[in-house]
């Protein structure tokens, strides 16, 4: 048997440290359902392995504050850093699939103004062999142009060939932007979401409370769900969406 890693002797393969893997498994157990636990585990492996890699080029890169909480219902986590006085956001999208024929990104990451990112980076996570492999990236602008929205699970599906495989281009583009003082347009314009009144919010929260976290995002129309996520203290109002403290 050929070791799998030897088959893609690639620059884009990053090993998962054993202590990171053990801790990620432990921490994932506090999420509410088996599916959320697995989702949190894959996301934590991806995030903790890629963060040091991202910091080689963006030393101040940090995890966005609500990243872990969102794993109850959504795949992916946001990383932020400053560049030319502008906050850059990158969403890591882990996948456990063997192939990269397509990559699916939850609509929340793409259509909610507070969630939207400049870049989306797909990464294959293999917990059995303990590695994360960079799959490529796209900008928000490219994603909006090329991906199609699957209404059934509210995800944007991007064909694998539309991913830019060479992730170092992300940093190269940032560097050239710094040197020339120009910044590439990475985000497409988004329509504003409706603002919900306090009464409407209360109503919505009542409707959603008690549902399993993984069902929340598809339980009401996207605009209403999104408006709730835009709201600052939404998590306190949704009692079921908070992972337990260990």
């Amino acid at each position: 048997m050929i070791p799998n890693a030897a088959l893609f002797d690639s620059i884009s393969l990053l090993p998962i440290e054993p202590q990171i893997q053990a801790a990620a498994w432990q921490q994932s157990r506090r999420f509410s359902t088996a599916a959320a636990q697995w989702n949190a585990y894959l996301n934590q492996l991806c995030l903790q392995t890629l963060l040091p890699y991202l910091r080689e080029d963006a030393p101040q890169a940090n995890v966005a504050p609500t990243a872990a909480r969102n794993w109850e219902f959504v795949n992916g986590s946001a990383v932020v850093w400053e560049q030319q006085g502008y906050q850059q956001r990158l969403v890591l999208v882990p996948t456990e699939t063997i192939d990269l024929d397509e990559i699916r990104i939850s609509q929340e990451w793409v259509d909610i103004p507070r969630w939207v990112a400049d870049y989306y980076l797909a990464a294959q996570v293999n917990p059995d062999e303990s590695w994360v492999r960079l799959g490529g990236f796209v900008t928000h602008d490219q994603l909006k142009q090329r991906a199609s929205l699957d209404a059934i699970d509210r995800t944007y599906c991007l064909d694998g060939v539309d991913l830019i495989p060479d992730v170092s281009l992300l940093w190269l583009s940032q560097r050239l932007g710094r040197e020339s003082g120009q910044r590439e347009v990475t985000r497409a314009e988004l329509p504003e979401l409706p603002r919900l009144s306090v009464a409407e919010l209360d109503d919505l929260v009542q409707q959603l409370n008690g549902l399993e976290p993984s069902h929340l995002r598809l339980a009401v129309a996207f605009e209403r769900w999104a408006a709730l996520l835009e709201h600052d203290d939404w998590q306190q109002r949704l009692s079921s969406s908070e992972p337990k403290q260990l």
Partner: protein
Amino acid sequence: MRPRHSPTELFSTFLEFDCDQVQGWAVDPNLRRSMEQAIAQAAGVTDGMTDLGESYWTLYWYKIWQANATVPGASLARGHLMAYIQETCYWIAQKTASSFSNLHYSPADLFQLAIAQVDKVLKGFDAQQGFSFKSYASVTLHNLIRESLRQRQEVDICTDWALLRKLSQKRLVEALQAVGLSGEPHYLRAWNCFKMLYVPQQATNSRQLAKPEPVVWEAMTQMYRQISRQQDPQQDPQQNPAHPTSVAQMEQWLTTCAKAARAYLFPNLLSLNSPKLGYKSGELLDDLCETCLSETCQTESLLSQLISAEEMQERQQQQQQLSELLSNAIQQFDPESQELMQLYYQAGWTQQQLAEQMQLKQCTVSRRLAKLRESLLLILAKWSCLHISPSIALLAHTSSALDEWLQAYYAQPNFQPNQPYCTS
């Protein structure tokens, strides 16, 4: 294997295998005729002054393929490029077969695997920025073959239930299409319920996922019913036998999905694109009738003017400038980095071998190679966009052009690290 020389031969003959052994070159009569016509026509335009070489004809057929990717003439152009790329596929197959001692595939199998991916090469090549079609094909096919071997091996290890979790939806849909089950939404729906409810319960054993317990089957079946009611409420589950009535039905659907996926990921290699079928008799291009050929010729005459002598000259000059720039940059690397690049790109060492030799961690070697490559990419990007900041899309082309160049640079037969090198 006898090397091919004349443009007619290069663009109209195919390798023939007999039980893994190369038998020789088989001529495709349609392609030969088309190539002879094109050469005669070009001679008319240039008054026979210049002898058009391999790089001209590659660009020529590539531009035709690109200009009308949907009309029959394109499949003729595709045929010419397939013929041209035969040796490249053969050498990649040889190299892959020899780098893995215990591979289940013969070089002939791997050759078929490479040939089957040529369309991806055609789609990915950028005639504007690219150095050479052949080096691009070589880099791309090498990666694609390794990737499909990796996927096959992963599928081999996985249980059916693990495999179902490790497929993209696109791949599953294609697998279902391949067995004639594309129009039936309940397979996909059942699969989605499975993925939502059934996850590994151990940190490092996701490939050995066992069959779900009865309680999980119950939950999946319930979820399926609920989703079906939401998504097509007009259907009464009592009256529609396609709707699930039982756990057994769910299980059958999911087993069918897994079977389809496995069959799709392991196609019978020999059925993919056997050169013995058709190349001689012209079956490969049987959609090409005489009228199509003459239509193609009309397009071609437009294109002969498209690639002018000036363009070829300009391209060559540009590529030479770039080559000098890049080879000078490589010579500025410190000796250790130069050696690293040479061992990796020329001698074909794996990162693991490099790590052992240099007594470094593999990820350190990997980062060093990445940084060296990035420094060349920066030079290339700055050269091609002097004053403006290039877009990411443009940089992506630059990046694959660099891989092509590195491939060609280190593949020179008499590689002398101190000689500036030009790919053309």
